[in-house]
């Protein structure tokens, strides 16, 4: 399960439905997960994701730079979410009264 840090996973999920700049990502992440990322945490994760080639910067709009998830990023996100889904299913099955 340790392939991603939580902020990286949140960012990829946020970018899964379209390109966003930093502030839009923070708002979106807070909306769908209730997690309020700090600006330092957000950009630390963005830098690592960009370095891995899982997201890419787009041309800046004014001073804001949108980011897009790459094909490689979508593949690893899908893989990670499937792993989490299996993990959740196994946990719930074991919790269910026999």
């Amino acid at each position: 399960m340790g392939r991603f840090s939580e902020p990286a996973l949140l960012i990829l999920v946020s970018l899964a439905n379209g390109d966003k700049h930093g502030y839009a990502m923070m708002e979106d992440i807070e909306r769908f997960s209730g997690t309020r990322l700090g600006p330092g945490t957000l950009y630390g994760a963005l830098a690592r994701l960009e370095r891995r080639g899982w997201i890419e910067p787009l041309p800046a709009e004014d001073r804001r730079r949108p980011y897009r998830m790459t094909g490689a990023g979508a593949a690893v996100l899908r893989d990670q979410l499937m792993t989490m889904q299996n993990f959740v299913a196994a946990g719930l099955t074991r919790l269910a009264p026999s």
Partner: protein
Amino acid sequence: MNLLTRLYPKAWRSRYQVEFEALLDDRGVGLADMLDIARAALDARLHPQVCREQTRPAPEYSTRIVRVGAVGAVLGGVMLVIIGVVPLIGLHRVTAVLPDWLQFLLPLFFLIAVVSLYSLSRGHMGALGRAGTGLILVGPVLAVTGMLGLAYSDALWFLVILGLFDMCLGFVMFGAAIIRAGLLGPWSFMPLALGVLGLAAIFNGEPAHSKLGYSASMVLWLLFALAWVLLGYALWSRQSQTPAGPEA
């Protein structure tokens, strides 16, 4: 704001400072944010997050144009085989059913690919690259002029060849600049290879009168067409390169 971002290493700031400060302006900074930034800046100093590739200016090209160019290069390569090579191996029936105007799509596809390459490399080219781009852009115009003129005089065929030669020479110069800038990653050699193959095919002449013989000449033209297809692939895959790096 500046005091907070100055906590980050220089390489990080040169890449992210402008957009990071825009975010801080949009959001406002509370005490918790200041602590978060200080912690993240320390982390960036202890575990560098920005590689040399990222400190280059972020791309200013439109990915849509690059993708359209990729499709143009592939279609150009396929079209070159259909209208240039297939008739030469005796399959005239295949091309006889195609309308005449289709041949004008060939330089158009090449032109689209070239515009896309130019948009990708703009700002990274030296004088050699810019001169090469100029030659490349003139080539298809000459070729189309020659093709239109063929209705009036066969002598204008030389304009078609001149346009092709001009474009290939431009690709050699432009390709050298692309290799220097490494703009297409492992495929950066492709524009240069395309230019060299095109020049070789032109100097060798038509397969029927070639110096190397019919088969070798056909192979040369096929490789030239394949180079266009591969250039299209290189442009397309430019969007999904995955540099190595630490865990996210």
